[in-house]
């Protein structure tokens, strides 16, 4: 293996280690379990969405609706509990159902109506952003709010649901690891195993790389594409559940950055290990990379408004890695 290949392959991981080492020395308190957990927690929801969109990238598609699926799920959870007095289980079930239905509709539009993936999911994104505001006439949902018909919504978020956002498991230290981080790790492991080690995942990669060849090898291409969008929808709705549980209300203004952050993580993932293709491990590392960088810079007193600039810079560097360097080394 040449030096260049090594650099392309492990460059991003080395950069991550170097960053962590630098911040550990330069920023006081960075190298603590609490700080590590905070990093994971800060990227948990973005990471879950990014893992979902990775599935659509693998089949050669794209899902722009993930951010709005997450916020729609969040609003739906709040609506179910606060307005309809439903319990936690019902709220979670409704959220997941939203994810599945949106995924099916996206898949249907793309596979059967032949709408290009970016456009179909862009349309879905708009549709959902609008839809989630209709039941409450554009207001956020919280206990005690006045409904359009003048009545007062007096339901509350159930403690079981809030625990999804606030409970912390003991891990060496008491009350260390929040539920959202555990969910992120489980989903990351699951989708990674699914994509890399099952025949279904392999077939999805085949569909993304050469759809005709996959079809002629007997793969039900349309079904795989629809499944990819369903996976993406489900992951996005899980992200929405975590968001609702963390906030404890249906906040109309939250989740603006979800789409861009998670797509960035998935695209940064292309560069990890120099594989130049979507992959779950890379997506997770990509999300973590952004989290480490932001946490470190924040602890070194970088102002909050530089965050998007930093993310953008990381993404551009990662894309150059993917398309210029690893592409050239493969010929």
């Amino acid at each position: 293996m040449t030096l260049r290949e090594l650099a392309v392959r492990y460059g991003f991981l080395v950069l991550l280690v170097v960053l962590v080492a630098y911040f550990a020395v330069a920023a006081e308190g960075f190298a603590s379990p609490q700080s590590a957990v905070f990093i994971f927690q800060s990227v948990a929801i973005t990471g879950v969405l990014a893992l979902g969109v990775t599935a659509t990238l693998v089949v050669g598609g794209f899902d722009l609706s993930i951010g709005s699926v997450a916020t729609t799920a969040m609003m739906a959870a709040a609506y179910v509990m606060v307005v309809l007095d439903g319990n936690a289980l019902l709220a979670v079930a409704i959220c997941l159902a939203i994810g599945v239905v949106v995924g099916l509709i996206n898949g249907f539009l793309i596979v059967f109506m032949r709408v290009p993936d970016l456009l179909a999911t862009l349309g879905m994104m708009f549709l959902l952003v609008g839809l989630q505001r209709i039941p409450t006439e554009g207001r956020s949902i919280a206990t005690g709010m006045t409904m359009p018909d003048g009545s007062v919504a007096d339901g509350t978020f159930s403690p079981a649901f809030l625990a999804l956002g606030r409970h912390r498991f003991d891990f060496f230290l008491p009350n260390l690891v929040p539920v959202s981080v555990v969910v992120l790790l489980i989903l990351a492991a699951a989708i990674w195993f699914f994509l890399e080690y099952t025949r279904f995942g392999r077939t999805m990669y085949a569909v993304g790389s050469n759809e005709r060849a996959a079809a002629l090898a007997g793969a039900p291409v349309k079904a795989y594409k629809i499944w990819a969008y369903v996976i993406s929808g489900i992951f996005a709705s899980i992200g929405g559940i975590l968001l609702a549980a963390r906030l404890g209300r249906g906040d109309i203004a939250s989740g603006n950055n979800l789409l861009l952050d998670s797509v960035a993580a998935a695209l940064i993932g292309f560069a990890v290990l120099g594989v130049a293709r979507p992959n779950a491990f890379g997506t997770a590392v990509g999300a973590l990379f952004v989290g480490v960088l932001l946490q470190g810079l924040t602890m070194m007193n970088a102002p909050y408004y530089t965050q998007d600039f930093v993310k953008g810079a990381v993404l551009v560097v990662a894309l150059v890695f993917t398309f210029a360097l690893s592409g050239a080394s493969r010929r």
Partner: protein
Amino acid sequence: MRAPAVFRLVGLEKSFGPNKVLDGVSLELAAGEVTVLMGANGAGKSTLVRVISGVYRPEAGSMELDGAPFVPHTPAEAIRAGLVTVHQNINDGVVAALDVATNLTLDRLNGAGAPLLFNPRRVRREARAVADRMGLAVDLGARIPDLSLADRQMVAIARAMAHEPKVLVLDEPTSSLSGAEAERLFALIGRLKAHGVAVLYISHRMSDIRRLADRIVALRDGGIAGAFEKKPLDYEGAVNAMLGRKVSAGTLDLREAGVSVFTAKGLQIEPGARPFSLSLGDGEVVAVAGLVGVGKTALAETLFGIRRPLAGSMRLAGSAYQPASPKEAIAAGVFLVAKDRGENGIVPAFNVYENISLPFLQRLARFGVSQRRAERAVARRQIADLGIVCRSEKDDMATLSGGNQQKVMVARWMAEQARLFILDEPFQGVDIAARRDIAAKLRASAAGRATLIFVTELDEALETADRILVMSEGTIVGAHRNQGLRMERLLAEIAGQPVRGVA
């Protein structure tokens, strides 16, 4: 008597990494002469074309055009200096979004002296002049997607000729043309010769070469392995020089078909086509020969469940066979090596063993979890079996030569036992050595299944098959045992001429 050389290459060298692809190529082209360049896949033909057309820079050696040094840094410079290349992929030569007239004058949109404004009337006038000079009979207002492949090719060549080049390089120009279309191309090349253009014609089609060549140059392992210019040309010698070994042709050990494996009755595959019947026996290799566009691929797709027959019934191994999808066809033991491997076969993101295991992942997986070790074992066995040249089963497909890529495609479907094994144009873009390997392997392993091969080149059918079926206008018009063939009749059937005695 040879005219003096207009284009001279001396000692060209080019490497990619450790691979020396061109190792001192020297060549001379004379005005008004067609030089055919033959070479197996991987011999360096494509690289040579890219070097002389200005895409790649040679590492050593020199080029001289019309007495002046020729050092093109870009394809545009090569064209301006008087050397024009028409590449193998026809659609690279034309811009699909524009009409014929704009395509013909496309190169005048740029470069020094190009007018600032786009004047459709002037473009039409200039295009008319170009078309007339070339004897091009195409509607100048037509859109490129509405043209046949041959017409697009003509437009690409006419456009190239608008520069009035001294040297024209044609890279496998007939690979996607039918016989009649190729004939038009040959007539055009004849006119160019008369105008004193030096033509470098790259092909492995013997029929083209016999028709056109004034001299033949064989390329092997990045060097010139032989040049043949004494009339009559020594075609066999050229093939031998290209392959570096003696080719033995036409010594097939024909087999009798065993019990019938596949039958079709009253099958109609295209609207208006006459229904036909078909019976394929165990252990026999049957070739379906026919021109491009006569329904060979339609028949292959019907057998493989991609399209439904319009009428008729099929039986496989004694039971009714009505596949609704490739998946069902594969489950029934009908496998298809589709034509055009780049488009329909290779998964570029996958390495060799992942490409081989693709259709049979389900059988190779345990509870849905893929067993890479088992996949690699299968791939290693297939690599050894078919003599695929690669470093290991983990190689990227892009690192393999065309012939080896095709072997991988065949290996993919030979990993499991088929009942009916269909190969659509399996020898397209494959060098003769790999083609013989594949054909020998197909024959050696033919027992236990019926093998059906769709080919355009009659030579390929003669080399491989026990029986030859001829297809024309969506139906089968003739069947021949590959022994003591009456060639005139076979050719007449292929050409679609009414033949007495065939119902």
